[in-house]
């Protein structure tokens, strides 16, 4: 293959790297009103009175909106396909505020200074209520976070508002208790994966204006333009045809921008004033007034035979969704959905869980989406099982993992189409030096080095829900335009989709213009989430390119006076086997212009009935100082099965970046609050994402498989790479000093205190 499988530079790479003005804030009109939000100082309160007169009198203040000034229909900010499985529990502004940072008033002024001055002049009186701060106390707490009557779900997600349950989930095959009774070994434990901040470099932002026909145009740093359009129409109570969402370049998202955190505030200002408006969250708001990964408590039981065959798995989850239920139901169910299929020698499996409301910042989508938390808990338990059985943990995996052509209990009979997980484990063992290093070595000076491991899976798109549409055109000049709704957020999908089209059409990539991210002109695509784009949009591109190629050959043959069977498309010409040829440019000219009247276009909508899992085997080597508990990550090896690798360099960076986020979750990052429910970690001074000294050495290898249902055999890669570091590093620390860290992150204090109890 000429394009696919090659490390081609991103088509936008040089422009973004050298700082050209292509991001949201760079494109905003200079006269846009600056939008600021007054926020609740209380975790749970009712607004008794508000006085905005002083603020409104200030010169330069354009409007101040309170809950009395905004539409009163509830909606969700979760960017999901309709009907969204997230409760409609939000108002643009509500009389009740549900966390410290919840929106109280929207201020729009000619500049930031004036807006901030106005904010100080707004007087609010609150009736302060008892908040629900501990998610383990939320179920049945005396305070009900969402007492409102008009709370609404599109379908049953197990919401019980009086008990603070946003969603509950259950998946069971076989009789788990009966199976545990038959197991010779049963291990169990309780795990606490923490809330993690996305900490993308470009904070949340959008600007809005009315176009020449009075429609609301929203330029937003979002992963989900089409969902934002639908969400705004609902929230602002205007027809969806009145909204256009444009996504320029995005400075990272990681799932954060799958939730519409800011668009509605700028949107309503523009609707109310008729003027352009811009909202840019600062880092503090980005940390404390958007979303994070769901903190969870996970109880896991794994039962096995003496030979290490896993017979039963039981996972019980409690997920903290915070003040609003964005992604509550789906992140919860994905905990089981992306862990139980790993091991298929089981006779019974069960996943049960509740997502509970609290008076803390809402949780939302975050790369890994429940699989991250579930993997930490299940893989830690499997490592514990291996130890109890006296088996090598890699051998336990190799004995139990699902293989190609097999089914698994919760899979409804679907056969696994591709997996190289076995090879990933073997390769990882070799790269980390497992044989020599497992479990640990004393290296003197009171320091111990040890290794640990974990495996993980994710999906590729959402089966039977996710779709991708693309349109491919032969333009009048012989060049192509590929229109897609895919939402590149730095990941490089604009590039790999162009690669795929170029591969099929056998034309240079430069001959294809890639156009996406505008709900007025792009074909529908749910957006950049659920590890969808390569697998779904990629397949749509392949189909569209094949269809267009055939049309071009048919048309070329017609112009050459031969039948379609007698021509091939090669380079930029259609040629007969006897050497007559016609260029694409000429075909384009003759079809688009003048007498042709038939521009050659293909259009494909693709969805998949399955969501083939990509896999990672992760291996960590740590050095622990036994005197202080200080842990240093020496080496991390990730071996990845993403099917066919479309662009090796871009895939490698995805892996390295995902592993680094996983390392952050394992060792450094935690969203914490004070006793009144105010976030303590609201800047990079308190919230530590890894810097380049913190990640040690990350090494990546690919073990390609071939997924029959994917484009060129490809599966996904974006999310699966975030999942292995927490369990693998926890395992390595345990192997070093015998302390099992079940509350993430691992800190020297926890290790040291744990060592005192041994």
């Amino acid at each position, binding site marked *: 293959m000429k394009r696919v499988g090659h*490390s081609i*530079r*991103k088509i*936008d*790479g*040089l*422009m*973004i*790297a*050298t*700082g*050209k*003005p292509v*991001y949201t804030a*760079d494109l905003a009109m200079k006269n846009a009103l600056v939008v600021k939000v007054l926020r609740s100082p209380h975790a749970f309160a009712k607004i008794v009175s508000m006085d905005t007169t002083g603020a409104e009198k200030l010169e330069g203040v354009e409007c101040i909106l309170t809950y009395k000034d905004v539409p009163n229909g509830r909606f969700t900010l979760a960017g999901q396909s309709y009907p969204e499985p997230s409760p409609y529990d939000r108002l643009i502004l509500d009389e009740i505020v549900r966390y410290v940072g919840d929106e109280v008033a929207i201020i729009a002024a000619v500049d930031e200074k004036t807006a901030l001055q106005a904010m100080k002049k707004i007087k609010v009186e609150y009736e302060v209520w008892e908040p629900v701060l501990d998610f383990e106390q939320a179920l049945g707490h005396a305070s009900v976070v969402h007492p409102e009557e008009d709370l609404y779900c599109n379908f049953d997600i197990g919401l019980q508002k009086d008990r603070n349950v946003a969603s509950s989930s259950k998946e069971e095959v076989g009789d788990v208790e009966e199976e545990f009774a038959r197991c010779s070994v049963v291990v169990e434990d309780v795990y606490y994966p923490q809330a993690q901040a*996305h*900490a*993308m*470099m*470009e*904070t949340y932002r959008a600007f809005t204006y009315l176009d020449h026909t009075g429609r609301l145009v929203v330029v937003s740093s979002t992963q989900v333009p089409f969902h934002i359009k639908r969400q705004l129409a609902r929230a602002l109570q205007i027809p969806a045809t009145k909204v256009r969402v444009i996504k320029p*370049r*995005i*400075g*990272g998202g*990681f799932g954060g921008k799958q939730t519409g955190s800011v668009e509605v505030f700028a949107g309503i200002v523009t609707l109310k004033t008729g003027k352009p408006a811009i909202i840019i969250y*600062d*880092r*503090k708001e980005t940390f404390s007034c958007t979303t994070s990964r769901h903190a969870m408590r996970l109880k896991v039981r794994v039962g096995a035979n003496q030979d290490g065959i896993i017979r039963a798995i039981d996972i019980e989850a409690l997920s903290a969704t915070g003040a609003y239920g964005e992604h509550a139901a789906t992140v919860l169910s994905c905990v089981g959905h992306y862990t139980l299929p790993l091991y298929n020698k089981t006779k019974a499996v069960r996943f049960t869980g509740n997502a509970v409301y609290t008076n803390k910042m809402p949780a939302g989508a975050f790369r890994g989406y429940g699989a991250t938390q579930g993997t930490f808990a299940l893989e830690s338990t499997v490592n514990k099982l291996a130890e109890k059985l006296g088996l090598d943990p890699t051998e336990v995996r190799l004995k139990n993992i699902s293989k190609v052509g097999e089914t698994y209990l919760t899979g409804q009979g679907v056969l696994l189409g591709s997996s190289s997980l076995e090879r990933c484990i073997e390769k990882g063992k070799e790269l980390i030096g497992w044989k020599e290093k497992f479990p640990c070595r004393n290296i003197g000076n009171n320091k111990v080095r040890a290794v640990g491991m974990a495996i993980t899976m994710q999906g590729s798109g959402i089966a039977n829900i996710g779709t991708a549409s693309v349109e491919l055109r032969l333009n009048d000049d012989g060049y192509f335009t590929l229109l897609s709704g895919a939402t590149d*957020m*730095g*990941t*490089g999908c604009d590039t790999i989709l162009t690669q795929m089209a170029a591969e099929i059409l056998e034309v240079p990539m430069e001959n294809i213009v890639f156009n996406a991210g505008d709900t007025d002109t792009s074909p529908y695509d749910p957006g950049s989430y659920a590890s969808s784009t390569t697998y779904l949009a990629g397949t749509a591109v392949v189909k569209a390119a094949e269809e267009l190629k055939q049309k071009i050959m048919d048309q070329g043959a017609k112009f050459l006076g031969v039948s379609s069977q007698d021509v091939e498309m090669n380079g930029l010409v259609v040629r007969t086997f006897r050497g007559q040829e016609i260029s694409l440019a000429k075909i384009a000219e003759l079809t688009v212009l003048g007498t042709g009247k038939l521009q050659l276009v293909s259009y494909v909508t693709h969805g998949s009935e399955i969501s083939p899992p990509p896999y990672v085997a992760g291996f960590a080597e740590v050095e622990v100082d036994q005197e202080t508990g200080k842990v240093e990550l020496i080496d991390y090896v990730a071996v990845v099965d993403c099917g066919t690798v479309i*662009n090796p*360099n*871009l895939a*490698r*960076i995805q892996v*390295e*970046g*995902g*592993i*680094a*986020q996983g390392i952050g979750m394992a060792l450094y990052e935690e969203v914490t609050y004070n006793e009144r429910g105010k976030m303590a970690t609201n*800047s*990079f*001074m308190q919230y530590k*994402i890894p*810097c*380049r*000294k913190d*990640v040690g*050495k*990350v090494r*990546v290898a690919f073990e390609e498989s071939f997924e029959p249902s994917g484009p060129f055999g490809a599966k996904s890669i974006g999310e699966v790479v975030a999942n292995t570091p927490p369990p693998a590093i926890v395992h390595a620390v345990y192997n070093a000093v015998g302390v099992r860290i079940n509350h993430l992150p691992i800190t020297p204090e926890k290790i040291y205190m744990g060592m005192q109890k041994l």
Partner: protein
Amino acid sequence: MQITLTINNKLVTWDVEKDEFLADTLRAHGLLSVKKACETSCCGLCTVWMDEKSVLSCTILSIRANGKKITTIEGVPREAEEFARVLTAEGSEQCGFCSPGFIMNVLAMKNELVNPSEEEIIHYLTGNLCRCTGYMGQLRAVKTFLGVGQV
């Protein structure tokens, strides 16, 4: 108040507020490569040069730039593109939002350090955060650019 300074080799006189930060002033004058991402001097995205040395423009008052020579990536297009070609060949710009500040610091390092070791490179650049790439690809690119061997 008015300040007079050299921006990318051009002498300019600008009106600034007394509490205005340099990053905002630069952006207001169309130098949109300058990004802000933390407001606490932690992330390195706003890196520009003041008299050839890397500084964090989001926490430097604009009045402090009076009489100084400020360089943004717009002022070193040839050198920036040279390194950007290496960086993007690795795919390690990813979202690109941190790249301009990062590139300015890499170029400053190239001017300052002779044949740096891997440890010195990491130390020099440690104030430039990146959430996308995990830093490995950036290190490969820097080493290729400096011709100091591969990871």
